[in-house]
């Protein structure tokens, strides 16, 4: 074992900025201007190296730690068989079981590690050893030989001479990956126009989420919020996908609190029913449900990224990353006094997409 102080001097002088692969050597050529590496300091012996009693003590400690690990394994086994989780189905019993199994197993594993490290640190040799590094690159001769082998191989294969073979291979290989890409075509259908469509159309009843019961206009009191799905959602062929587009929030506020729209959008001023407004619940940013309604300010907040929509301004964005207002669903009541849509969403609900087109 080497433990004498050594100072390696680098034979390669540093060529700072050169192209070679010289090892950077702080103690290299310009030594007159640099300190010399003093080499490894003298080895310091541990008490376990010089005192047999200390070594014996360390030995006992290590074996005690290993024994404690075995105790942990036993705790795990007792916990597994003595603490069934199917007779008492409470969360408390589950937590107790998880804790006993985990603490037993955790300490069983952890103490093996502690014992090993303690053994290595106290009883295994701690003389630092020195190994020399070598250039990563091959010697010039090796490089030359390697490049000759490649050149000879290329020559023997004839790939450079027989251009017809080479070019036909390149051509064939170039189109070979296309099937691999084409095969993925059936991962999904093309978008078509489905993102524009939802279950809402004229006469579809607004029903409560999730039980699907219809809502009377009279049930919607001021300040109350209803989470709404279209009637017949559960019978549709893809209820979850439809719900992801058709979820609606129903809120009643004083009609005079709402600023009337002007211009082209003025027709929407009577899309509410007596102060009951229905807006898409799907955020126009990246599609989270806009589920938080602040009664005092009439703001709707998306909990994912805090886009804030102002109900008094027809759900215009007043804060956060969304750009477009929530699409409004036009509503009225049917003959039995239940709220129904008086038409589809005027624009695709949910997040933007490339083909969506300009928003209203």
């Amino acid at each position, binding site marked *: 074992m080497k433990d004498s102080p050594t100072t390696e001097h680098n034979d390669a002088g540093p*060529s*700072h*900025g*050169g192209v*070679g*692969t010289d090892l*950077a*050597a*702080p*103690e290299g050529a310009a030594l007159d*201007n640099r300190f010399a*590496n*003093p*080499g490894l300091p003298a080895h310091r012996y541990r008490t376990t190296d010089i005192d047999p009693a200390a070594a014996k003590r360390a030995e006992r400690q290590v074996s005690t730690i290993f024994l404690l690990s075995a105790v942990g394994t036993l705790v795990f086994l007792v916990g597994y068989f003595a603490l069934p989780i199917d007779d008492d189905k409470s969360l408390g019993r*589950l937590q107790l*079981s*998880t804790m006993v*199994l*985990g603490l037993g197993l955790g*300490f*069983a594993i*952890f103490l*093996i590690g502690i014992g*090993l*490290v303690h*053994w290595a640190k106290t009883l*295994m040799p701690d003389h*630092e*050893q*020195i190994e020399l590094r070598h250039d*990563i690159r091959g010697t010039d001769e090796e490089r030359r030989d390697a490049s000759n082998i490649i050149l000879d191989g290329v020559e023997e294969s004839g790939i450079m001479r027989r251009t017809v073979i080479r070019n036909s291979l390149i051509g064939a290989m170039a189109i070979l990956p296309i099937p691999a890409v084409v095969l993925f075509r059936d*991962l*999904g*259908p093309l*978008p078509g126009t489905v993102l524009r469509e939802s279950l809402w159309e004229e006469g579809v009843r607004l029903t409560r*989420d*999730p039980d699907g019961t219809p809502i009377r206009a009279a049930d919607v009191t001021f300040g109350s919020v209803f*989470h709404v799905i279209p009637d017949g959602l559960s019978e549709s062929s893809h209820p*979850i996908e439809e*719900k*992801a587009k058709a*979820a609606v929030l129903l809120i009643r506020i004083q009609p005079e609190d709402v600023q009337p729209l002007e211009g082209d959008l003025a027709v929407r001023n009577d899309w509410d029913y007596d102060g009951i407004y229905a807006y898409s*619940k*799907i955020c126009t*940013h*990246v*599609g*989270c*449900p806009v*589920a938080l309604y602040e009664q005092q300010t009439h703001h709707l907040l998306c*909990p*994912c990224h805090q886009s804030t929509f102002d109900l008094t301004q027809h759900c215009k*964005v007043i804060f*956060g*990353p*969304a*750009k477009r207002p929530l699409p409004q669903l036009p509503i009225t009541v049917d003959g039995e006094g239940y709220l129904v849509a008086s038409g589809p969403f005027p624009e695709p609900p949910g997040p933007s*997409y*490339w083909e969506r*087109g300009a928003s209203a």
Partner: protein
Amino acid sequence: MSSILTDKRTATLAGYVDDRVGASKIVKTFARKIFPDHWSFMLGEIALYTFVVLLISGTFLTFWYTPSMALTTYEGSYAPLVGQTVSEAYETTLNISFDIRGGLLMRQIHHWAALLFVAAILAHMARVFVTGAFRKPRELNWIVGCLLAILALAAGFTGYSLPDDLLSGNGLRIISGVIQAIPVVGTYLAFFIFGGEFPGEVIIPRLFILHVMLIPAALLALIGVHLGLLVLHKHMQFPAPGRTNTNVVGYPVFPVYAAKAGGFFFIVFGVVVLMAAVVTINPIWAYGPYDPSPIGAGTQPDWYILFVDGALRLMPGWLGPIPTEFTTFGYVWSLNILLPGAVVPGLMIMALFAYPWVEQWLSGDTREHHLLDRPRNKPTRTGLGVAALVFYVVMALAATNDLVATHFHISINDMTYVLRTLFFVGPPLAFWVTKRVCLGLQRRDRDLALHGRETGRIVRTADGEYFEVHEPLDVYERWNLVQQEADQLVPLPTGKASGLDKLRARMSAFFFEDRIEPVTPAELEAAHAHDDGHGRALEGDTDPHAVSASGRGSETGHGH
């Protein structure tokens, strides 16, 4: 010492193995290979070991988990959800938690290990960055490491979604929204990935096969390359007496390093199990099954995705009257989603990949490096590292803005405005402060090397002059403070300089102009002569300004 060959049976076995795989050569080459020791080298080990824990715990989970979105009625042990329509993925995850003894423990081990895995990778990357371990010949291994980091994020995210609970389902919803925002192909991509409209019925099985096969296989392969290159290059070491660029000082693999590293595996594994035993994580039964309509307040992804989510929160949809989403010829450009969701992470990854070559270009240093830098000795690099970290943390913090706002009773809007400001101001400020701190530490090193340690002993000379006695450092202590090379600028080439040359010279100056020169033997000589002057001061012959003047160190360049 008794030879392994003195025992007949082991000799026969060893011979059998050697005859067939040449084991003796392998043992000779690797068993006494030297590895240097430093606590920071264990960060990468933690990453490796948590990955092993993930493989073990993950395999256990697959024995019960069903990656299916088919709907079923829950009939298991968790009473509040009995009778609800849930997916099979959610149902089987509940069953693992409530009906399999140790199942919840395994789920929590898996989740905690995943969080630690990514954390250890990032900490390891930070260590490699600030110590310059990415320099030649290890640039390619830096790239492998970056790929591993990206794969770790992918592994985390694909696994996070598998329970099909409300929280992870909303995470997928966000991903689908971000994909849809990609110009031209986004909608198609989203339909291909989800097999139609969100959420569809195929995304969970698809994520599952990525999570349990493709990504772990790629991780394993790249870990093999990462460690193979580590063995080939030999580990770097911190500069210290006896440690040079051409040697490795440390302990042999067998037995010391094997015992320590092997023991550390059990320690990491044990700590993960203990965490899983006492700290609940991802209680999916409390979130409920995925449903596109409900959502809980305070929705956060796992911590390593926070930065993307936070960036999405910071980006406003309107800059005053100007929208960040607009339409040209009927097609939508959602910059409010693209910039934070794709451009920022993309640029971060590109900067990460390119950094070793950028620094090499600016230092003109193409030599092999096997000694680590002390972070303070590379103020600009360390400053950039901390700036990047602050950038990352500001974005991650932004993803917790709702929790911070409710906990500290502050307006969420104000919180967001502050973070938007910090997004731009924080990194440059962090860079400047870190660089100054590094330069200050270097000055202190210089001072220590030149004048030694303050002893607190004040001596009064016969003339009534007071001075504090300094105790000089021994050569070993001093070496650590003087071993570094002075940084060099790449100058403008003589003759005609191209625009690129000028850029290189300018950036090189930005990197290396502010620097503290390491102490030279001549300077130490001069300082000693001066300190001896205090001896002579007893005879009344000294310059009263000398002490303060020589304490400054010699800083070159400008930029104070």
